[in-house]
């Protein structure tokens, strides 16, 4: 964004802007970030401090401790859950990217008969929510003998990743001038060479956007992982934190918040590196 469109902004005076822009904006930021602050503060508190609001101000940590994180990493299967979630997310992302690149290229560039209809169907597929699919999928997973196996997740996650990635990549391929491909065709390159050597290198930003988005969506997925996996050691982080760290009516809020915090970190780190890709794919997918 080289040049900001400021419009008539310069007409607004300082004190007025403080009241109408900065104050509400600060309010939004505080409310949007507070749950994460509270998660972090709770993670590093000792138990006596955590449940004693009279002697300690709950908004601050008086004697920080790593007990909760230690308990999480060494007394539970948390590292295992992280590994499973990471594997499922990475494999599902690569399968979806592979299928989506080919599909998006075929729809956008090969211009086969009925291509537009297929594009529309893929858009509609994105609108089918997992909450109506998980019951029939559960019966299929049983029949295929995949119940309680991460493979069930790897195979079902592409159902919501492929529509999104294909839609996003179609937009990227569209922005690459067709003349480049025509030149290569005239020079005798095959279609596969064109895709591999010309279109894909130019679509790298789109591939990164689709990839990190697919990874984030897989990492955040909940209902399939809840319905298809039952063994403690095979659960994904979101499911395991919710089902394994709560013991009866005793909530260990310290460990729970530590689990939530650590489980959010991988996506938060990727996000911090690729913010612009997230914003462009989010708004691009809506605007297309």
């Amino acid at each position, binding site marked *: 964004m080289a040049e900001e469109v400021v419009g008539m902004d310069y007409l607004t005076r300082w004190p007025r802007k403080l009241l109408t822009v900065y104050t509400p904006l600060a309010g939004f930021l505080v409310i949007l970030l507070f749950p994460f602050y509270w998660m972090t503060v709770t993670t590093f508190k000792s138990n006596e401090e955590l449940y004693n609001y009279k002697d300690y101000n709950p908004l601050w940590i008086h004697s920080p401790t790593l007990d909760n994180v230690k308990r999480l990493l060494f007394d539970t299967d948390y590292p295992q859950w992280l590994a499973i979630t990471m594997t499922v997310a990475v494999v599902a992302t690569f399968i979806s990217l592979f299928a989506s690149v*080919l599909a998006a290229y075929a729809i956008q560039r090969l211009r086969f008969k009925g291509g537009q209809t297929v594009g529309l169907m893929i858009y*509609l597929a994105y609108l089918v*929510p997992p909450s109506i699919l998980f019951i*029939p999928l559960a019966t299929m997973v049983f029949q295929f003998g995949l119940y309680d196996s991460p493979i069930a997740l790897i195979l079902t996650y592409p159902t919501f990743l492929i529509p999104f990635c294909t839609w996003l990549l179609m937009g990227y391929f569209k922005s690459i001038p067709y003349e480049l491909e025509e030149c290569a065709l005239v020079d005798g390159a095959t279609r596969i060479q064109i895709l591999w050597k010309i279109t894909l290198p130019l679509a790298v930003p789109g591939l990164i956007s689709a990839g990190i988005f697919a990874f984030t969506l897989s990492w*955040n997925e909940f*209902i399939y992982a809840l*319905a298809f996996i039952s063994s403690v050691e095979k659960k994904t982080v979101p499911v395991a934190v919710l089902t394994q760290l709560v013991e009866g009516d005793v909530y260990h809020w310290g460990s729970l918040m530590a689990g939530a915090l650590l489980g959010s970190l991988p996506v938060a780190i990727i996000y911090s590196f690729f913010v612009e890709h997230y*914003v462009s794919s989010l708004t691009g997918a809506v605007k297309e």
Partner: protein
Amino acid sequence: MPGPDMAIAAERKRVAQPTGSWVARTLDNPGVLAFLFMLPAATLLLVFLTYPLGLGIWLGFTDTKIGRSGVFIGLENYESLFQDSMFWLAVSNTVLYTVFATIGKFALGLWLALLLNNHLPAKALIRSIILVPWIVPTVLSALAFWWIYDPQFSIISWALTEMGLIDHYIDFLGTPNNARASLIAANIWRGIPFVAICLLAGLQTISPSLYEAAALDGATSWQRFRHITLPMLMPILAVVMTFSILFTFTDFQLIYAITRGGPAGTTHLMATLAFQRAIPGGQLGEGAAIAVAMIPFLLFATLFSYFALARRKWQQGGSDD
């Protein structure tokens, strides 16, 4: 003597020769190639999306249970759901949840987008911070809300008590209406960033000259908002709202993480009730029927989105490609 041009032409001719085998030539046929390229995506989507969608509708007409395949029982599941007060409570909860959460998300999201559309220092940083609630796994941020809504140690109750506004702690999740309001608040919190960033993208496409012209004509800031911003924003607003309504209506994670439908099943949405009956309850047929009951609404939302998209293209003067 052949000049450089001829050398290039000869080179081109050499390269353009059908050098490959029969396989290579077939692969270069656009029709064959398109079919092969569509194959992985089409297979995955047909097997794990289209087929289960049909299977779900079929299961709704059977009495399938976990570990036992069912038989066709016609509309029996729907007849029993029709008399099931729990089902109707879930339907009304779902509608209320969608309506209030959508109004909240769009009112606050539009406000935030308008704030961000001002000239601000560190705007990119603010924008990236705002998206964080949307990036983090819903269940994990919902856990933070569960802790914030704790009856004994709620930080909100503590803060309000310290300020002298209340004298006893609020029971956020203990009574049906409190629990519903708390869930809606958490859903709004999570939805604001998505709405705000999408609408901001829409706002940035509006030419400032429109505002300048209106201001010269003496339009007030409300009139500029009402007659320039809103109409120009309408197409993208319609699309974002369709997505938002769709995902709010079929929401599962937030409710499952914070209340699991409680207290006493009064905060179930259709998705959580379907899960409750199908997986822990084992009644796959009945659960499928509840899930299928969501489809008419989703169809309506999808058609709405389709026509909004068509209208947007028409407004931009684009062709239908």
